[in-house]
């Protein structure tokens, strides 16, 4: 599957295309295979996202998990600062990244 990701124009936060909007949570992302260029152009023109691009992903326990470690770090936050990640209370979340 392919996910569309980018950064929020105002805040720079990592965002994921949900099918109708952008979310900071990768688990909200939908497969955009075949539509990625069209959605990216439209959303960038609407200034809702900065430099969107598609990445490879796979389903993991029912949720999308980016295929490459760099995108998994983007999705979660720095592995060395669990307190700054999107799931600070989950002690096992590092395993999802690595």
């Amino acid at each position, binding site marked *: 599957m392919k996910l569309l990701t980018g950064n929020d124009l*105002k805040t720079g936060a990592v965002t994921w295309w949900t099918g109708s909007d952008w979310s900071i949570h990768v688990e909200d992302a939908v497969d955009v295979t075949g539509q990625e260029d069209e959605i990216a152009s439209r959303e960038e023109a609407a200034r809702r996202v900065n430099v969107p691009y598609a990445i490879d992903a796979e389903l993991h326990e029912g949720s999308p998990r980016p295929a490459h470690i760099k995108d998994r*770090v983007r999705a979660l936050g720095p592995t060395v600062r669990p307190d700054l990640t999107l799931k600070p209370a989950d002690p096992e979340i590092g395993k999802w990244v690595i």
Partner: protein
Amino acid sequence: MYRYDQYDQQMVDARVEEFRDQARRRLEGTLSEDQFKPLRLMNGLYLQLHAYMLRVAIPYGTLSGAQMRVLADVAEKYDRGYGHFTTRQNIQYNWIKLEDAGDILADLAKIEMHAIQTSGNCIRNISSDHFAGAAADEVVDPRPYAELLRQWSSFHPEFSYLPRKFKIAVIASEQDRAAMRLHDIGINIVRNEAGELGAAFYVGGGMGRTPMIAPCIRDFVPLDRLVTYAEACLRVYNRYGRRDNKYKARIKILVHELGAEEYTRQVEEEFQHLLDSGVEPPFAELERIRTFFADPDFETGAKEDIDRSDPDFALWVDRNTIPHKQAGYVSAVISLKPVGGIPGDATAEQMRVMADLGERYSFDELRVMHTQNVVLPHVRKADLHALWTALDEAGLGSPNLDTIEDIIACPGLDYCSLANARSIPVAQKIAQRFAETKKTATLGQLKLKISGCINACGHHHAGHIGILGVDRKGVENYQLSLGGSEAEDVSLAKITGPGFDEDGIVDAVETVTGVYEREREGEERFLDTYRRIGMGPFKEALYG
């Protein structure tokens, strides 16, 4: 410390308003990202892995308590409560919002700071010896020359669109504490046999994917021709540097391809051409700048004795203080490398503690080291215990300068969009391993440097032990190299062989230090032993 004059302040204030307008237009959509990107980069604003990242310039690493306090305020008000001190003596914030960037720059401008030329293909923040003005071995304080070059290079219209970024370091001692020969231009202020001061120019060094040690192209440029000679070096590069290939665009490639002799010939020709063109600022300007760097009002007859009855304090004194040119004083290094911590990170609260202590104990001066620590340059020995006590309470009292715990690590894949592998966790694991085995002390001076990609922001080429993170089919892998040095005995590290996984690299570092412990003679450092016995025994131990 240098203080802005009206021109400096006007330039910085004008840039703030210019960028505020550019950011507004980007947010409104009248500038595309392609149009905006070079503009934000000229103001130090990157788009990194998690958010915008702002890199703030700290010229030659020198700052006041008030400036450090504002850096803390920025961390707290606009970021997530911390900042990261970098290997170019700057500070970076990792969680900046574009809509806040103008306000941040305005806050910085009020205390004579900015983010100009901390990115882009221009002359970057000029670095220097973090012990400048304090070191017992310096010929002269190098910072006035660094400041003169800062003024010359700021907004220089001819050098704002160079083939590639350009980094200059200025030192003034035989000991190189600024990795001078691993810069695009390294300048060493020297004294000739007649007692006159001049500048030795080293051009074409650098790390990155093609590490090179800069050759000396002229061993003595009179100081009233310093800027003109630098301009000649830049002009030849600007004219012939490879703009067609990003990976061959640094000046080191030009110097290498032309040969140092031919490059020098062209520089000398350009220098002669420039001599009468009025490039050089009036010498009076250098004299004016120099007054800002006069010695502080040192106490004469300050006490030399230090009460070493507290063993923890004594260890910190032995490891983290450096001889000073003034009797009764030392330079004290504040370690930003607590075992298990993130190298170079400091919380807003810690920055405020450092600001307070700099004001109280070091004539209101602090320095950022390229090794990601902070220096209080002028501390009375009599004040050391009080200083150490305050540092220790703030988690800043680690006694590990230049030990295997004092690791340089780039932000790596945890923050950087260019990185291929994480650097910080490896640094943490290595420091923890050696702290647990209590080998830090027995290993003595051992400089370990980690980069998360080939761009080498973590200076791995110059590590006694260097580690480079690479991506091997989507999995982090770490190459080990040995024998580098960024000091006056400069050398480039050599790769040992096949790489290791995250845990394997920690074991590998322990293995090579074991070889050192077995083979060392007398007081040899790791680097000395490596140079004496060569790579063979280390490879044998690593790969069998």
